[in-house]
């Protein structure tokens, strides 16, 4: 499945999706020393965001969020990319300083069509997101 969206930050990567249904902040929702998610939901708490494609509605919270994303990036513990419904300036700055491709305003709601565990390709340069479901294991790199 291909989704057409809008570039927030450029770059092309692929990886496993982790879906967070609430607005996300790198302060409070994320531990930059471990790369783990701190959101108190059973499907998210303690899960690693390292090298994941983070799918969320938007950003929220502290203006220091991008510092945590940058700090995690320096020790290779940041997510790989962000796909969101509608970006806001703090989450966008996190993507920019931590070199994460980021796409928003997709033609389908990413929270509905992307599931945690899906293999997702993100092209930040042209705003394209391609979803490959986990059933297609053969498509995942070994």
């Amino acid at each position, binding site marked *: 499945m291909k989704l057409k969206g809008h570039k927030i930050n450029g770059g092309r990567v692929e990886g496993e999706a982790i879906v967070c249904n609430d607005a996300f902040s790198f302060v409070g929702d994320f531990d930059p020393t471990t790369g783990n998610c701190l959101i108190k939901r059973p499907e998210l708490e303690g899960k690693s965001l390292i090298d994941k494609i983070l799918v969320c509605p938007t950003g929220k919270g502290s203006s220091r969020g991008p*510092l945590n994303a940058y700090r995690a990036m320096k020790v290779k513990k940041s997510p790989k990319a962000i796909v969101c419904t509608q970006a806001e300036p703090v989450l966008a*700055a996190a993507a920019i300083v931590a070199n994460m491709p980021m796409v928003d305003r997709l033609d389908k709601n990413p929270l509905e069509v992307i599931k945690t565990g899906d293999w997702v390709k993100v092209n930040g340069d042209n705003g394209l997101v391609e979803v490959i479901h986990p059933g297609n294991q053969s498509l995942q790199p070994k």
Partner: protein
Amino acid sequence: MFLTQEEERMLDGDYGPGIQKSTELLVKLGEAFDAKRLVPAQSAHIHCATSLDLLLELTEGATQCRVITTTHPNPYPDVLDPIGCKRIGLPENYDIYEFIHGGPWRQIEDIFKRLGYLLTYTCVPFLVGNLPKPGDVISWGGTSGAVTATSMFGACGSRDSVPANIATSVTGRAPYIGMAIKQNRYAQVLVELDRLDLGNFTNADYGALGYYIGEKTGSKNVVINGLPKTLSLEQFRYLVSPMPVSGATNICHVVGVTPEAWTLAQALGGSRPEEVITVGKDQIKEAVDKLTTAHSGEVDLVRLGCPHCSIIELKDIASLLDGKRVHPNVRLFVATAKQIYVLAEAMGYVDIIKQSGGVFTNTCVGSQDPFNFIGPELGIETVATNSARSAHYSARTSRGKIKLLYGSTAQCIDSAITGKWRAIR
């Protein structure tokens, strides 16, 4: 995005790698939000809890900041009053940001000095010389300062991040987005007041009003109709400071006070509001109840100054404390800017507050208050405050370990003297 010749040169690295990296960040941010160009900025304000590596990257080769730049509260809580801070149990050299960020603070401070950042260490930059005029584009860390400057002084401060604040300080540019665009500033939600006793409204009532409105309106622009035109700077700050905490407010027009809201129609840009909210006594009580998490009336710590106290607030605190003593079981922690402290010293307010047992700080007493983290170890369970911001953050950053009581300055000082939370206004 259109760039001027000068901006092209900045982006090409003609002014060094730091300006280049900073310009690149601002251009990317602008493009992400469909900005047509960058605009000249007039002011920046920088959080001290930054990342040394990122600060180095964004400022490498830059000799001076290009716009007036001030710094957010001090990472060290005991700079203003080392003896007092020691007495109430703060460890020596306690550094709230080292604790949180593992950052080498002294190196960061050296870079701030080299760049000519004014080391004000306060969240109220407009009270210590960084005062924007209507239309000035500002990039400020700290949402209380930004929403106050935008709503009371007509400045253009949008939701912003620490890296963008730094980039604007060294480039003198900001993306042409958000509050910088007149069309984005008009109010969307109208707040009407229903039979509130405004003649006897305390600062805590203003805070509760703002806290309620923020939660109901999220990131929407707000206009409040029916507040007195004589609203003081202090009342205004208590009103708007909690809004970006319970919500994500960029601008709150107060009809008759906000420079671009002399009339309701002007605030709404001639349109009808998308939504009308009415606030009466029940809504104020709802907000106060949300901010109150303590069940016990025994107070361990009283915290004032989130945002930092103005000289008028210090005068009020001194007059409430004059000749009285803080209860031996209570700590009274008062936050202000050093520049305001010096004036309060000259006026004798500092002596009165200190002799009563109050302790001063110029650190953050909101989200980063040291007692949010080490309070429980020191036996501090219940904190009383006149700040909705501080109450909200304290309950969360302490992960519920600190219980909050929320009320006016007079009620807080009464509890500092008696050790008990009593229903006085």
